Structures are given as structure tokens and as C-alpha cells.
């Protein structure tokens, strides 16, 4: 499963980090970092993260 975050839209709110901490994180400067490819076992969490994003910046493919 491929994940992409539109960094022009992302506001670093971290809602995705709360939903899927294994996949999304905030770095020391408070900016979003994430794994672009993850296994299918994380699907539920990643979908929850995409739903939780207040600016709808997260796209999931595959």
C-alpha cells in the first residue's frame, strides 16, 4: 500500500500520527514524516489516519 501526503496542504496537525503512530511521525522541527510504503496489516490504521486529517492531505493507493 502506497501513501502520499500533499505537503503543500499538510499543516502538521499530527492527527494522522495519533491514528497511526507506526507510519506517521512529527520530526524535531514539528514537520510531518511518514513511511511512503507500508504492508497491508497497517491498512486499518492508515485509513483511520487519512480520515482523521483535517485538511484531507493523505492519499492511499493500492
Amino acid at each position: 500500500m502506497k501513501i502520499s501526503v500533499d505537503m503543500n496542504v499538510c499543516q502538521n496537525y499530527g492527527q494522522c500520527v495519533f491514528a497511526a503512530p507506526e507510519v506517521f511521525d512529527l520530526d524535531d522541527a514539528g514537520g510531518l514524516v511518514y513511511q511512503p510504503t507500508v504492508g497491508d496489516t497497517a491498512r486499518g490504521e492508515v485509513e483511520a489516519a487519512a480520515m482523521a486529517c483535517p485538511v484531507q492531505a493523505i492519499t492511499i493507493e493500492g
Partner: protein
Amino acid sequence: MASTRDRRIVVVGGSLGGLRVTEAIATGGWEGEIVVVSAETHAPYTRPPLSKTALVTGPDPDALAFKHGLEAGRAQWRFGARAVAADLAGRTVTLADGSTLGYDGLVAATGVRPRQLPAGVDRTGGATHVIRTVEDCRALHGALRSHPRVVVLGAGFIGCEVAATAAGLGCRVTVVALDEAPMLRPLGRAVGDAVRTRHEQEGVEFRLGSAVSSVRTEGRVHIVELDDGTSVAGDVVVQSVGSSPCVEWLADNGLDLTDGIETDNRMRAGSVPGVVAVGDVARFPNPLFDDVPRRVEHWQMPLDTARRAASTLLGDLAGADTDPAPFTPLPSFWSDQYELRLQSFGAPGLADRIDVLEGDLAEHAAVVGYFRDNRLVGALALGLPRRAVAVRRKLLASLSDPAPMCPSLT
């Protein structure tokens, strides 16, 4: 009994809560019909940008629309349809056009509307602004384009965000509020005062501790009169004086509708099975804190309550106990005012003691702990976004610890 395929769940309210509960029902094994009755004419969209970025640029409903989950498209969406009454015993909902919809299960997801000053106080004939919908945002965005003098009534989150956005656009802004500090009730005096100084650095003026006695129009200018005898003039007046839950359509059914729809911890409303509530309109007990039902008007709650309510409803309709564990969602919200970000977790409004645990409020960079009976019930990261994830984790650990000591969050 009819087969499940002939049965119907009606969701009233098609915004964040309505969308998420529809998805949870559709993916939770419900084979019957789902009808969503939505008073707004747009597909569901995200509201937080309406007082922030979208107020600067003007709102684009396509860009604000939720991308995910409208594929719960098995549901029939009736946009521009408003529920005006419900008969819970007879299991019907009546719409504004006079038609009725029978149901087996009902979800109330009608949210809140901005509270408005009474007509006797607001004598501008509807010339003041509120901000809840795309249309509200578009109107206010248009009004701010000429850099008017803006008077914001109310110093809660939305009022503070509108003030910050308007000041950032070059408007002269005055915030008028009855409370002695911005965001006093949710976050307390010290934090409110710190945020106030941040606004004052941007030229925003505050008139706090006075009630509005009237708003009237003289020519093209609105005059806001305060009960201390002073007044403030503005070209644009924005009311952000709180919200009222949209519950009228449920009247006369024996429900407790004082401040939203009271539900149990499973989000069930009243004693007739098959009725649940989600999102801003639902007042439910959260054992994370105590057994007092409360409403929470934050982004995260419609998502959490939608999942809970869908599982309760599908269980009740199937006569099964699907989800007996207590429901303990962690409230959380953020607010952006200039570059200052506030991230709050838990229930800081319940605190009887507030301690700065890290950093300095005067520098607008601090972690603040909120305690009730010496127990941490809430935490705020002010201007420290990179601490938010850890602060939230520590708060959760402390709330689930039966004998918490937790003097610090680090």
C-alpha cells in the same frame, strides 16, 4: 420480520459525523438501506479551515470536501433536506417538504449552529456575520477584502481564530467578550492572558469583561454598545458567541435535549432502542473523566463517536451485544492563531489547578498540565507542536493509571 435488506437506517445530518457514521454502518455489515438527510447542499466538507486558511483565500467547496469515504456511496444522500420532526415510537422522521421516512435505526448527527444575539440586541437587521458553513466563510471573506475595521464578539477559539486571520489580512480588529480572558473556560486565565498578548503584538485590541447591550447600524458603520457604557465601531461585526445544538427536530419524544442529546456511553439516546447520536450534538459520559454526560465540539469526536454509535446501532438492530467495553475517547483539538499553534488533549476545562510543566507562557512556548483533585485531566502544548505527540501519550498513560502521580510530562 422483514429481511435486513428491506430495512433502513436514517442518518440526520451529513457533515463529518454523518459521513463517518455512514461509512461505519456501510462497512459494518449492514445490508439494508442507508438514507442520509443533509440540510446543507454540499457534499460533506471540513470546517476547521473556514476560520483559518479558507477565510484568507475564500472557500473552495471542492478543495474542502472530504476525499475519503464518500464511497460509502451505497447510501442515498439527500442534500438540501431538513428533518423537522421525529416520532421515535412510530419510527419515522418528517422532512421539511412534508414527506416522512420510516426507519429501523436512526442516527442524530445534526451538530450545532452558531448562537446569535437576540434580535432585540442585534439591531443590524442581519448584517452581522457568523462562521460555521462554506457560505458563512465566503461572505466574511468577501467582507474582509477591503481591510475593514472588524469587531469580533466572543473570545473563544473561533473568535480568536477569526481575529487572528482578520488581523493577518491587515484589518484593525477589536475583540469584545464577557470573559476576562480569551479562551478562559476551556484553557484558564494564564493561558488566555498569554494568547491575548500574542494578539496584542499583532495590533488586536481587547474589550473584556463587558456584555454587549446592543449592535446598531449608523450609515455603513456598526456600533457595538457595551454594558459599561462604552462602544466600539466597526465596518464588519462577527458573532462567535458559542453554539446551540440542533435538536429541535427531536422534540416531544421524551429525550433529554438540554444542551444536546443526552446518550449513554454507547451513544444510545433515550429508552427506545435503535436511536443513537454522534458528534457535536451528542452529550455522553466518558469514564476517562467521570460519569457526567458532556458535549465535545472537537474534530476528533465525530470520528470516535461515529464508530461507537455504528457498532451499538448494528448490535441493537441485530439483538446482539457487540461492544461491551467502556467507550473512552480522548478529546483533542488544535487551534491556529498566527503561527501560534495550540494543541489540547483531554478535558482541561475540568481542572481545578493549572501548572506550566515546561517552557514559558510569556514566550508562547509551553506545555501546560490541567489537574483535577491532583489528577492530570488535560494537557496543552502551546507553540510547541513537536511536543504534542509525547504530551498526548503521557496524558493517556496518566489517565489510564489508577493511582497517577505524574508531576511532569517529560
